[in-house]
Structures are given as C-alpha cells and as structure tokens.
C-alpha cells in the first residue's frame, strides 16, 4: 500500500444525528451499493471464534426468501472477489453493536453509499452485545440489520414503521416494510 497516494478522510457514523436530535431526511434505500444482490459472503474466523456462526446464518437467511433477486450464499474462499466479509469484533464505543463498511476495491478504499461497491464488511460487536445482555434473538436481529445495510437498505426515515432496519436492540426479522424496501431496491 502506497500511503503517499492515499487521501485522508473523516469517518463517522450516521446515527449521531438522531442522538443529537438533528432532523435528517434519510432515504430508506441507497442509490449505491453492490451491483447485484445475488452474492456470496465469507465468515471471518472471528465469527466462529466468538460463536456467532449460527446467528449470521439465521440473519442471512432472513433476507433470502423475499425476492428472487436477492440471495446471500455462503462462500468458503476468502479470496472470492465477490464475497462480502462478516466479522465479530470489539468496539471502544460501548453503545455500538453493529457496523457495515463499504469498499470500492480490494485495497481498502472506503466507499460512499452513492458509490458502486466492490464488496462490504459486516461487523457485530461481541463486547457490547454481551454488556447489554442481548439474547440470541436480539443478536440475530442485530446481524439482520447490518446485513440489510449490505443490501443498500438505510435506516427508516419514518420511525413509526416497524422495521429491522430501525436502530437499537430489537428481536425481529425483516418486516413488511423492510421487505417492501428491499424489493423497491432490487426488484421482486
């Protein structure tokens, strides 16, 4: 990696706006993302190390029976260029339970939600899920939420909608609203 060619950027998280009471008009799907929702994913070794393989399986399958244009397969090869990568990590922010990072290429260039992504990483944070005593249903819901981001679904702007894409600890899978948004992005 040639750092002299790197451009410095500021990374932040979008949930900050609602925490501070700022009204921001989010679209519920992003214009960018992967070119297809028929895709592969690879589980980093951290997933089995922390024991979240079953949770990610369930979360992945939550999105697999909604649209014929959406299916997330499991990949065994890390070098599969088409594969998203799922991780289990730890965060210094004690309220962060999940994060999705999009990349433009395989050299670590982060992408905007309006960009065409090469792939993305989905992370759930073990230390914070445990410190908040999240049960298995809540962990699966959290993983489903993050995988939803990998499918270009945003947090719902209208917060009265029941949706797995709403922020916070929940115990639900994709709702009618989530399914509608998924189909609007990728087709039926």
């Amino acid at each position, binding site marked *: 990696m040639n750092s002299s060619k790197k451009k410095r950027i*500021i990374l932040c998280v979008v949930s900050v706006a609602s*925490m501070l009471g700022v009204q921001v008009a989010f679209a519920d799907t992003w214009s960018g993302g992967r070119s297809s929702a028929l895709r592969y994913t690879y589980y980093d070794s951290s997933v089995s190390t922390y024991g979240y393989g079953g949770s990610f399986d369930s979360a992945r399958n939550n999105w697999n029976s909604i649209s014929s244009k959406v299916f997330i397969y499991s990949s065994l090869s890390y070098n599969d260029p088409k594969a998203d990568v799922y991780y289990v990590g730890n965060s*210094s922010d004690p*309220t962060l339970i999940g*994060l999705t990072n999009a990349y433009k290429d395989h050299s670590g*260039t982060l992408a905007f939600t309006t960009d065409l992504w090469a792939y993305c990483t989905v992370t759930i944070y073990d230390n914070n899920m445990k410190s908040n005593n999240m049960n298995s249903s809540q962990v699966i819901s959290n993983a489903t939420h993050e995988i939803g981001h990998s499918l270009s679904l945003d947090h719902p702007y209208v917060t009265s909608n029941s949706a797995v894409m709403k*922020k916070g600890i929940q115990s639900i899978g994709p709702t009618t609203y989530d399914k509608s948004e998924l189909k609007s992005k990728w087709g039926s």
Partner: protein
Amino acid sequence: MILNTKLKAAAAVIIASTLGIGGYSIYRNSQIHSNNSIAQAPASDEELSVISLDANYIKFDNFLDLSTTADLIVTGKPLENFTERQHYVSYFPNDQNHVQDFYTLSNFKIDKIIKQPPKESLKNGEVIQVGESVSIIDNQ
C-alpha cells in the same frame, strides 16, 4: 484518568453535544484494542471528505433516558482543533484493510459538572480525555 467502563459508556453521550463536531463521545477504553494505529494529523489546510458509516447503536429515545443512563454529565470544551486531536483506527487481524473500530481522543476541559458518580471526584477546570466515534484515516 481511570474511569470504570459503565462511566465511560454513559459520560460520552452527554459530552458529545459540547464538542461541536457532531461526534458521539465516550471515554476511551484502552483495553479494547492493542493494534490501534494513530493517524498522522493532517495539515490544517488539507481538504477532508467525510464518509458516514451505517451502524446499529443502543438507542435513547429522549433526553431523560439519556441522562439517566449517563453516569457523568459535564459541559466544557475541547482544547485542540479536530484535526489536531489523536485519531485512532484499528483493523481486523486477518485483513489490515478492514476497519474494526475508530475513534478520536480529545483533551476536554470541564466548565461545569452536572452529574458524576460518588466514586469520582472530578472538578471544574479539570481536563479529561473524551473519545468520539469519528476519526481521520487514509483512503484512496
């Protein structure tokens, strides 16, 4: 300064609004990552773009919930400009291109203490370190 984890969790939320960079603050838990890298501070005139990452957070629906959960509530101001603070990024061990965590540490001078736990003895005028989920990193 050593503060317990619960305090670290709660303090930040309240301090955030005083920092003025839209950040969500926490005290840094230095035990979390051993492979943090410190980003080189950019030149002050360097143009920085912002990438917002999508996350799932423990949510507070109102100020009462937020203030009740917080162990420490203070007002004050950071002592350095944003670009001059300590920017940390950690990557997953199996792929140094994949960001695991990121935050910025800021020296923060307390003007007023609104709430603190009995075990702490912070005073007005004291400087504490505050972490925020925002950082400067290198990108293509």
